[in-house]
Structure formats: C-alpha cells, structure tokens
C-alpha cells in the first residue's frame, strides 16, 4: 500500500509540474494582457510538434528540440501579441475571440503539416529510476519535474528581483499608472507573451514523447489550466502553482483510487467549492478577479 501511494504521489507530482508550467504561462498572459488566451492549449501543442519535427523526424538531440520548441512557441506568442492582442488592447472580448481564431489556425497548420494522426516520437530516454519494486519514475518524467521547478523558480526570481520583473508586475497591477511611471506597456506585453507562450511550449515539448501528439491535444490541457487559474485566483502566479499541485494531486489520487471520470467531476467540484468559499480564488484579490 505504501508503494502504491508513493507511485501515485510521483504520478501526481509529474502532472502538477507540467500543469503549473501551462497555468503560470496562462496567468502571466492574462495578468499583463488582460486577455483569456484560448489558444494556450495550442501553444502547448505547437511545442510538442517542434519535438516531432526536430527530434523525431530531424534526429536533433531531444533537449535541443525542447529548447528550439520553447523559442519557436515564444515567437508565436510575440506574433499573437503584435497581430492580435495589441490592436485589440481595449477590447478584451475581441482578444478572446481572436485567440479562438488563432487556435483554429494552429490546429489546421498542425494537421496540414503533419497529418491528423498521432505522431510517433521515440522515447527521449528509457531509463527508469527504481525507488522501490513498485515505485518507479521514468527519466523523462523526472526531467519535467526538474524543468518545472527550475523554470518557475527562475520566473519568480525574475519577477521579484529584477527591475524588468517589477515593471511587469506594475503593468499587470495598473497599466495606466505603470505607463505614467515611464514603463513601456508594449515592451512588458511582448515579454509577458514570450515567456507565457514559451512556458506552454516547453511543457508540450517535454511531455511530447509521453502523450499522443495530435492537432487536438491542446483541448484536454486547456480545460485543466482554466480550472487551475480559477482555483488559484485569476492573475495570481503563486495561486496558479498552488492550485496546479492541489488539482493534480486530487485528480490523480481520485483517478487512481476511484475513477478517472469521477476525478474530472471532483476537479470541477473543487473549483466550485473554492469559488463559493473564496470567490476570488485561493490567492486572488478582488481587483484581479
């Protein structure tokens, strides 16, 4: 039983890691751009397809493909900022609709470029960390956990300890006041979009060999990401990380001990319960919500 619990805990830790990368990116974009980016799941998908193109088909080293995926998806974020969100800056609903359009474009591009079928990606490593007879962690899963810890820590330091991080946070709190202080809103928006998109791209690229890579793969993660940012408090990065861990652990344990469908229902109930008790989410403030 202990081994069973430990293995389930490792499964949950892995899920929490990649979900926090996606959710934090989504929160960052919302915080600075004030736009719900419905195409965020497709940015995750784009990261996975970079690994298909460079690692599975182009024979590039896996980690190089992941890095290229992060940059490519970050550039997609810049494109979204310049072409979609900046012209619609004063129209949040317009930005949301534009992101849905971009989602469809990315899906169609993936289908046209790679076909609609699941892509075969050779495992990045077949090494498995054997902790006990029935407690094992595959190396690629460990990479996801480590990458999430390193990247989220780096992001936290960047936001809290650097001048540009302060500017980004100021811009997220009050755009006009930040502009009056001489902060370039366009520049902070570009950086937020690049980082937010790149985080989703990294999550997609790192998990690509372990999931079914297909043009529709963004759907499943975006629903979980929305639940997480609502539970965490829309606009709160710390809240997104805490909620990602809470959601992943609850979902994984319920899926393992009861049923995966019940786990989905419990995930939604968790969101409802948090909204009833704290309408702003775990770490949200009234202003952000």
């Amino acid at each position, binding site marked *: 039983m202990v081994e069973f619990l430990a293995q389930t805990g490792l499964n949950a830790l892995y899920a929490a890691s990649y979900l926090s990368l996606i959710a934090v990116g989504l929160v960052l974009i919302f915080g600075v751009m004030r736009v719900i980016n419905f195409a965020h799941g497709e940015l995750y998908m784009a990261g996975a397809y970079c690994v298909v193109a460079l690692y599975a088909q182009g024979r590039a080293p896996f980690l190089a493909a992941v890095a290229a995926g992060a940059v490519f998806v970050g550039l997609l974020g810049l494109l979204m900022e310049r072409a979609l969100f900046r012209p619609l800056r004063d129209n949040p609903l317009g930005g949301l609709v534009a992101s849905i359009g971009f989602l469809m474009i990315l899906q169609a591009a993936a289908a046209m470029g790679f076909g609609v079928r*699941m892509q075969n990606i050779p495992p990045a490593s077949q090494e498995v960390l054997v902790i006990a007879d029935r407690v094992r962690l595959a190396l690629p899963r460990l990479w996801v956990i480590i990458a999430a810890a390193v990247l989220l820590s780096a992001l936290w330091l960047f936001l809290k300890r650097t001048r540009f991080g302060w500017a980004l946070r100021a811009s997220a709190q009050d755009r006009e006041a930040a502009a009056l202080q001489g902060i370039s809103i366009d520049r902070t928006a570009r950086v937020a979009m690049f980082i937010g998109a790149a985080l989703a791209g990294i999550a997609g690229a790192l998990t690509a060999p372990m999931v079914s890579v297909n043009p529709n793969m963004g759907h499943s993660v975006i629903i979980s990401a929305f639940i997480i940012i609502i539970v965490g408090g829309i606009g709160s990065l710390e809240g997104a990380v805490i909620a990602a861990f809470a959601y992943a652990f609850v979902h994984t344990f319920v899926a393992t001990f009861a049923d995966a469908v019940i786990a989905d229902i419990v995930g939604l109930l968790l969101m409802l319960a948090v909204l009833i008790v704290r309408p702003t989410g775990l770490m949200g403030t009234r202003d952000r919500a």
Partner: protein
Amino acid sequence: MRKGWSLLPVTRRRFIGGAAAGLALAPAAARRAPAQDKVVRIGFLAPLTGPVAAWGKPGLDGCRIWAERVNAAGGIRLADGSHQVEFVPYDDEYDPATARVGATKLVMEEGVSFVMMLGGDPWPGAQPVADRTGMLFSTLLPSDLGPDTPTLIAPAEVHPVYNVTAVDWLAENRPELKTAVMCAQDDALGLPSVATYLAAFEAAGIEMLEEPILFDPATTDFAPIVTRMLARGPQIVCLDTCYTDYVHPICEQLFQQGFRGQVLSCTADFYDQIIARTSKEWVEGMLFQFPDFDDPALNADFINFEDPNGFFATYNERHPGEWGAVSWEYASIMDLWKAAAEKAGSAEPAAVLAAMKEGGKGPHIFGEAEWWGADLFGIDNALVGNWPVVAIEDGKARIKEFRSIPAWYDRHGEILKKWMTEYGQMWNQR
C-alpha cells in the same frame, strides 16, 4: 492591357488549333468511353481524422489498392457489362451528426451503391438514412446490428466477439496465468469489448482482480491508470479495444512501471512503435487479433483474399509504416460485395444483400462462415467463422492459430450474454 472578362488571349488561330486537337483526340476518347461510363460508386464513411482515424484512413488506402487490382482485372461484371469501381470517401470524424450528413450526401448526391463504415458512435447518425433509403451499409462493429435495420451487415469483423479466441488460446497454451486486470475507454467500442473479455476470462477460469477500469477518452496521462492496474500484481493486463493512441502510451507506462507479464489487446497497430517505446523483449508474446498480411499462414487454401502477401507489399510500398488492423478489412468486405453483386448481376442494395446471404453461408476472409447473430444482435447479419490469434515473436506479428468463434459461443454463449446484459450491450438494451 486586355479588356473584358477573358483571362486568356484566345486568337482565331489558337481556337482552330485547339479545336483540331480536340477532334483528333475524340475517337480515342470515344473508344474508352464505355468502360469509363460504367462505374459503381462505393461510399466510404469512416473517421479519416481525429483519434479514431487509425481505424478509418488505412482502410481507405487498402480499398484504393483493391480497386486498382479489380479495375485492372476488368472491373465488376454485372448483367449489363463490366463496371469500374470508385470509392467516394467522407470523413465522419467518429461523430454521429457528421455521419448523418455524410450518409445523406453519399446516398442522395453521390449515388453510391453501398456504404462501408467503421461503425460505433457514428452509426446512430447514419442509421435513419439506411432505414429511409434501404441502402446497404456495412460496419466493422456488429454491436451496431439490430433487427430494425436489416440492411446493415457486419461481414468482415465480429468485433468484439472474436476477442474470445485469444483468451481461449491463452488458457490452453499458458495455463499458469490465472489473474487479469483490464482497462478501456468508456465508449461504444470499449464497453462491448469489456463484456466480451469478461466472458472469455470467466470461461477460461481466469480471475479478474478488480472491475475493469473505464477511462475518459480525453485521457492523455495513463500513469495513474497503470499504477492502479498493477497494484494487485496481475499476471495478465488486458487493453481491451483501446485505440492506438491509448495502447502505445499504456504499454510504455506498463514497461516503465515494471510490468513483465502477459499483455493482451484487441489491436496492436504500429507495434514497431510500441517496441521502440519499450523493448523487443518486453513486447515478445503480446497477443492480439490482427495479422500482418505477409504471414505465411494466410496463404492457406481456405483464405478468401486474393494474394494477401502481394497486397501487404503494395500497401507498405505506398504507405510505409501505416499497416494496421483495418488496412485489409474494408477491402475484404469489398471482395464479399463484389462476389454477391456479380452473382446478383446487379449493384442494387437489395439484390446484393439477398445474393450475399443466400444459403446462410458466405466466404469470409478467414474461411467459410455463417450468417449469425440473432442471439446477440437480434439479426443474423454478422458473418462469423474463424479468427486468427496473433502473437509478436521476435519483433514480428505471427498468426499462432485460427480459432472458431461459433464453436466457442456454443460452449460459452450464455456467459457472453450475461456480461453483455450486465454492460447494457445486448441489441435490445442499446
């Protein structure tokens, strides 16, 4: 700059030249006309995109090879002469509403004489079209059959009933395996298969360690499901009729979480990729139900498929790495349809169906079979006979044996009916 709507600078000289060339080519075109005019159109209504596309698109590719072979050999000989065959595909996206639109278009606009489907979730969408028009439809999933639609047949695959053959073979050849667990996606393909495997395990004296795990088809991370399946130390892990998109990551998780027992699955499409995700040793002995067509066992006299080895070679040449469970199935249905149409001398759905079912027997790909199914499906519209049990040996799929489904059903039919009823899969429950 030219004025007016014309895009080409047509001069009198060019017009005369073009007309002369057209007249010169006309007799040759006219000579070919009779053969080209007579065409039988066959509808292919199956998922060509999305997670179930692996059971649609390879079938269409197989059908196109079949059509080339048949057309090259003179086409289909009906009472009014030879007809070329042409497939008209429509992607049903494994969705009933899309299937309804597709069925209507194929039957009402494209003038097809027969519609082949994968079946399952999309069938309820196409069913009203079949009922209204009397069009002959086929499904790979006999669980779609019912007495309300006598023009729906399952002439190739008796999914999921053939799954009993692998369990029966396993019980005989590896009697030391006594415990099993199972997982499946919770849908029209997964549930009847779960009931069938439960019946087969019960008949074989293999104990299920826990209830089958039914997962949401949107699942992407299978680690929790595999952890749960392995918690009780099963000897057999059964993957039911999981889609290819699930079989591969589940196998990878089984491998990573240390399972080294027997894996049983309805399909193992693209098993070379499973080997790449695990190891050749891990996959050794994995049992499933769909052979590669270069298997020497398919050259036996009782096999009703023209040159299976050549078909496999052509398929792999054109679609390398894409051979799967359904690559040959729709083509084998076309063999049956062609024989019946030639016997009837007509492509009319009613005439073909009558010719196909004459005498209650038919040439199924794996040997002579009988029209069967009233007990389970409410109508004898499934062509049932032998089915192969396939194992991976040294990295290659090989047929271990052909086993009789009716013979198993004669011994254990009541158990199957019990589990089908338990899961609400009998024809009168659906």
